[in-house]
């Protein structure tokens, strides 16, 4: 899973899964652009951790739902890192509103960030990825691209859209030697209530640690590093023929 010398942009890298992905890429030798929208402190934290590993990180900021801002921070990334090999679309919103609680504003906010934002980042990154011999687009999606959440239908809609966006992009970008794949994580413990398995979202039943194995065959939820490891594999030369795939990364929890 060597990515030495490659350059990567990870959106939403100031917290959670994005932070774990950025650190794992840097640990394996990639130069990383750490993107954030509002969590400057988180991005600085990610950069410090990367630099502590002896890696190179560059912070970029912007709203992924805004085309001009996306174009700007992708250009900044390519300028700062000397091109772009790997785009990791990760930044996403989840509001935990029911079907009847959502309104047009919340609908647009999620769809424009989670779905349109992924496309905008791909479109902006494409001129840079085309210049490389083995460009990679890795979309961090969710098991909720196939399974309903029962707590945020618009979030699921955005992930269902990403599933098809990934498949379409794999065909279109394949002609440039760029692979496009999705990772569909299950519950990942990022320290927030809504994704910590012992504290499920509103409406769900609290889960005791002793019940973990009933819901997680491996006895634990995922970690950001788990996602980071898979991203590094997909980003490496070892996965040159993997494209158009959606890899469920949930410790088999969706099989229960």
């Amino acid at each position: 899973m060597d990515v030495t010398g490659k350059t990567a942009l990870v959106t939403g890298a100031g917290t959670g899964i994005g932070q774990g992905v950025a650190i794992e890429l840097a640990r394996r030798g990639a130069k990383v652009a750490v993107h954030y929208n509002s969590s400057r402190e988180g991005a600085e934290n990610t950069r410090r951790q990367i630099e502590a590993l002896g890696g190179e990180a560059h912070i970029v900021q912007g709203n992924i739902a805004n085309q001009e801002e996306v174009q700007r921070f992708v250009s900044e990334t390519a300028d700062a890192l000397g091109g772009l090999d790997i785009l990791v679309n990760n930044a996403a919103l989840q509001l935990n509103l029911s079907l009847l609680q959502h309104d047009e504003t919340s609908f647009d906010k999620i769809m424009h960030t989670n779905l349109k934002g992924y496309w905008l980042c791909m479109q902006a990154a494409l001129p840079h990825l085309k210049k490389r011999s083995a460009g990679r687009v890795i979309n961090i999606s969710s098991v909720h691209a196939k399974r309903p959440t029962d707590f945020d239908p618009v979030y699921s809609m955005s992930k269902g859209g990403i599933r098809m966006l990934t498949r379409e992009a794999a065909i279109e970008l394949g002609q440039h030697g760029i692979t496009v794949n999705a990772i569909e994580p299950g519950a990942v413990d990022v320290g927030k209530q809504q994704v910590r398995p012992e504290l499920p979202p509103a409406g769900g039943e609290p889960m005791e640690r002793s019940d973990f194995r009933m819901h997680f065959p491996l006895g634990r939820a995922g970690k950001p590093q788990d996602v980071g490891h898979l991203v590094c594999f997909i980003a490496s030369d070892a996965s040159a023929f993997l494209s158009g795939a959606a890899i469920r990364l949930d410790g088999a929890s969706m099989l229960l």
Partner: protein
Amino acid sequence: MNLLNQTVFITDADHPSGRALIARFAREGVPLALNSPSGGNAIREELAALTEAKVKLLQLDLRSRAAIVDALEAVEEELGPVGLLIHNQHRYEVTNLEHCSESLFVDVMDTNAKSAFLCTQIIGGRMAERGFGSILYVTSIHAEKPAAASFIYSASQGAIQMLAAEAALELGRRGVRVNTVEIAPVSGEEDHLTSPLSTLYDNYARKAPLQTVKARDLAELALFLSGDEAGALHGATIRLDGGFLLHYMDHKMKKST
């Protein structure tokens, strides 16, 4: 069939699927609320045949919450409660992700997916209040299979597929049945999604081992799904493509006889 004479709301009466649905449900004698983007011009023949049915013709922008709320009030006052919502919006524009404009992306996504969400929330929400009703999403095989011609369309269909799953959970607990039909293009429509990057629609008619889909096939399935005989079908996705997607690589497939 047991809609108890409740109104059937069809979101795109002008689409070939919509025209077939009009004819089939009219034969059942149920009231019809027909949203026609052309204001009825595209369905003159169908409307002329509806001599006995109660019909309300609408021309709504289904991307607008207020428009749907107002229309639902008017429909229910004139025709009675809506018991079946059929969402069949299919806007596609041939484009690619490299050159597509942001405004086109938003427009296609809103026309297809946001309209589905708003109709579900407003019309499905009303059904949930009553504890009775049914929603049918007419999506596309491109909720699963890329077309390599209109990535936004495919993404919108993937989004609706998940909306249907969520609605089946949330509204199902309140008595509303929710199902999805993923339809292949009806004859002639396949030309809209041809692509220089894919041979998917080359020799379309020959690729379906049984037959290509006709709009009336959808209408019959929709009628079945709305009835008591399909009472246990909930959260289901039925692919209606005559076996088309079983075909994969031309050089590996036998020729039709």
